[in-house]
């Protein structure tokens, strides 16, 4: 309204009311503490996207409150059942979290108790000049914070200003997610799905490979518990992406490890990847269910549910097997050994390129990969077989991983811009591939699955057939766009930028 003072404040520990009273004089402070405490939960998804964006989400009294900075918190009712943003009743926190992480579930990152106190600041005629709410939050771990939320009344600026001054004297500042986490969830480390390698400029290619791989082993491990508990699909997705990145470091950083060492590591990683594939495939199909249903005419939908029911049943088994695998002693041995190896990299057998400066190595590799993409793309025209388009997709993916691995090495935002430019092309190629893979999977299902018998089988075959036809159309539409997407990615400016990145000496000259 008229006041420009902040609404939300955060204090470490408890509030000292006498100091506030002194700051407010001659206005008077009236506080009414709630009778008891209520339990609270600090919520975020596994990626900690709320924390990462400076937000703090608390659940208490069957309601949610999302705090950020100096703003008034967003509030809404909590979910009566379910852990996903979509399970929340309509409200501002549902919309926000649905946008931020539609596929992720909420996790409880801290618990404890909270006491709420309403406050009023009144003048000598007992006219209220400011309202507010104080939440004293005590975590189970022993840390405590106090959140103060002011509700200024129109036309009364002095009271909020005096209150803000009193709060600041006690060290209050805007609500800061890191301060809240430090007090309530000190053991919860921020999760980073794409860890950045630190560069000083002195590293060798070997150093970078080791650090990158060791980072991604940590990412994979951070997702194990979520995969085992089957909390949401993204734990497995991130786990697999981490393993895939580990593999691509091995294949991209040629000559950094010795040949035998490389082959051993590759084999170990393939063994880790293998048991995860089926659950992920089924996750993807099941997530596509609404979309598939929408694509076929209504009378064909019951036929599709034969397939989806079969997929769901199969997923339950595959998930159980995957959880067993991740819980197994054998898995723990393999992953712990891998971890230990990267913690003590001196034990690795190195390749010829291991001692090359990371900087030179990176620029050379990125250039080589870029040339390869251009070469494949040059061969592609309207009649090129699909295999070559897939080849382009894989080459693009490798190129992007490389740029991502080395991005912190390059000054400015050119690496980020290159990655951004690839997005359209990669989305296009990715969709093209997904359509192809899905058609094959559906065909295989029709041909081999026991559910495809009898009248229901015929019904299902009809529906799946219709879906395959539609997927084929989709695939062809994506295929028709590939050259245009590539040209957009490979614009003269992009070429110049990649060249400048890989050959800075020429660009300077």
């Amino acid at each position, binding site marked *: 309204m008229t006041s420009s003072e902040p609404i939300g404040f955060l204090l470490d520990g408890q509030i000292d009311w006498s100091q506030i009273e002194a700051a407010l004089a001659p206005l008077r402070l009236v506080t009414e503490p709630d009778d008891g405490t209520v339990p609270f939960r600090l919520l975020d998804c596994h990626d900690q996207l709320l924390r990462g964006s400076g937000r703090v989400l608390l659940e208490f009294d069957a309601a949610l409150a999302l705090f950020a900075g100096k703003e008034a918190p967003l509030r809404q009712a909590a979910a009566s059942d379910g852990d996903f943003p979509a399970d929340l009743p309509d409200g501002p926190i549902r919309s926000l979290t649905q946008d931020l992480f539609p596929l992720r579930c909420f996790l409880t990152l801290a618990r404890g108790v909270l006491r709420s106190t309403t406050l009023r600041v009144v003048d000598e005629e007992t*006219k209220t000049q400011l309202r507010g709410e104080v939440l004293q939050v005590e975590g189970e771990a022993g840390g405590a914070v106090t959140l103060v939320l002011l509700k200024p009344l*129109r*036309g009364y600026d002095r009271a909020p200003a005096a209150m803000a001054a009193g709060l600041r004297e006690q060290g209050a500042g805007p609500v800061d997610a890191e301060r809240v986490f430090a007090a309530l969830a000190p053991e919860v480390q921020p999760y980073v799905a794409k860890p950045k390698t630190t560069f000083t400029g002195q590293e060798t290619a070997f150093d970078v490979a080791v650090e990158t791989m060791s980072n991604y082993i940590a990412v994979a491990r951070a997702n194990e518990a979520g995969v085992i508990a089957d909390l949401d699909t993204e734990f497995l997705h991130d786990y697999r992406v981490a393993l895939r990145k580990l593999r691509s470091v091995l294949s991209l950083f040629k000559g950094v490890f010795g040949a035998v060492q490389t082959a051993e590591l590759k084999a170990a990683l393939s063994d880790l990847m293998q048991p995860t594939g089926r659950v992920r495939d089924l996750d993807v199909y099941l997530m596509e269910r609404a979309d598939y249903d929408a694509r076929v005419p209504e009378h064909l939908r019951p036929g599709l549910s034969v397939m989806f029911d079969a997929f769901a049943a199969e997923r339950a088994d595959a998930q159980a097997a995957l959880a067993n695998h991740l819980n197994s002693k054998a898995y723990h041995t393999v992953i712990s050994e891998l971890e230990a190896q990267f913690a003590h990299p001196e034990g690795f057998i190195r390749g010829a390129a291991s001692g090359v400066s990371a900087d030179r190595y990176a620029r050379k590799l990125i250039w080589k990969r870029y040339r390869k993409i251009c070469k494949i793309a040059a061969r592609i025209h309207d009649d090129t077989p699909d295999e070559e388009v897939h080849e382009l997709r894989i080459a693009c993916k490798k190129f992007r991983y490389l740029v991502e691995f080395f991005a912190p090495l390059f000054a400015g935002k050119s690496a980020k811009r290159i990655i951004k430019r690839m997005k359209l092309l990669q989305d296009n190629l990715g969709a093209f591939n997904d359509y192809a893979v899905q058609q094959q999977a559906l065909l295989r299902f029709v041909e081999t699955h026991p559910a495809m018998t009898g009248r229901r089988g015929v019904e299902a075959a009809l529906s799946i057939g219709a879906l395959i036809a539609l997927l084929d159309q989709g695939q062809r539409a994506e295929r028709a766009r590939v050259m245009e997407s590539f040209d957009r990615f490979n614009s003269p400016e992009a070429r110049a930028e990649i060249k400048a990145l890989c050959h800075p000496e020429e660009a300077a000259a």
Partner: protein
Amino acid sequence: MKVLACYSNKGGVGKTATAVNLAYAFAQSGARTLLCDLDPQGASSFYFRVKPSKKLKGAQFFQDVERFTRAIRGSDYENLDILPANLTFRDFDLFLARMKNSRSRLKKALKGVHSDYDVIILDCPPNISMLSEAVFKAADKVVVPVIPTTLSERSFVQLLDVFRADGVKMTKLLPFFSMVQGRKAMHGETITRLRARHGKRFLSTELPFSTDVEKMGLHRKPALCFAATRPAGKAYWALFDEVKARL
């Protein structure tokens, strides 16, 4: 946004109490409400413990929408803000009279806060002046408390004449009987006579004479706050329902 004026060309008829309780009732019903205390005695502001703003200078008041909105104060009740009476309001009639296009200026000033409020209630000073004529123009409805006595009846007839002369739509007028004492025969007779003469123009709610209304000054709260279930409180709720239905 609707503008509701509480007006009487006669003093002491329960006009301010009506404005205060209607404003409170609208706010309680969920409507964002602004009560403008245009009466220089500042009684509505007093009831809500709101002090007038010293910074305002009358000459610029209605020219400067920002000043107008900056003078607004939040009440102790949800959804209810007050524009407190100000010393400069004493010269308000004069000020308006000096200004050409006074009606459109008031209208403009009210529009300045349109986005903020669902209902604006004007507690008007008890005389027929440029201000009140401007208010009649700006208001969607004009609530007029009428004590059922011969003297009040005469004032009411005068008011009708003003409306006619100004070309203000008669349907804007919402008179109701105020401070009614059931034991007084004259009250009953006057009510019967006026209802017969003016048909459905009078609202059906009759506000009883009540010490609860007088106690508002003691509590410095709307009667609806502390006497909602007593006869006066019930009557104010009924009045609110009727006014809201006509607005």
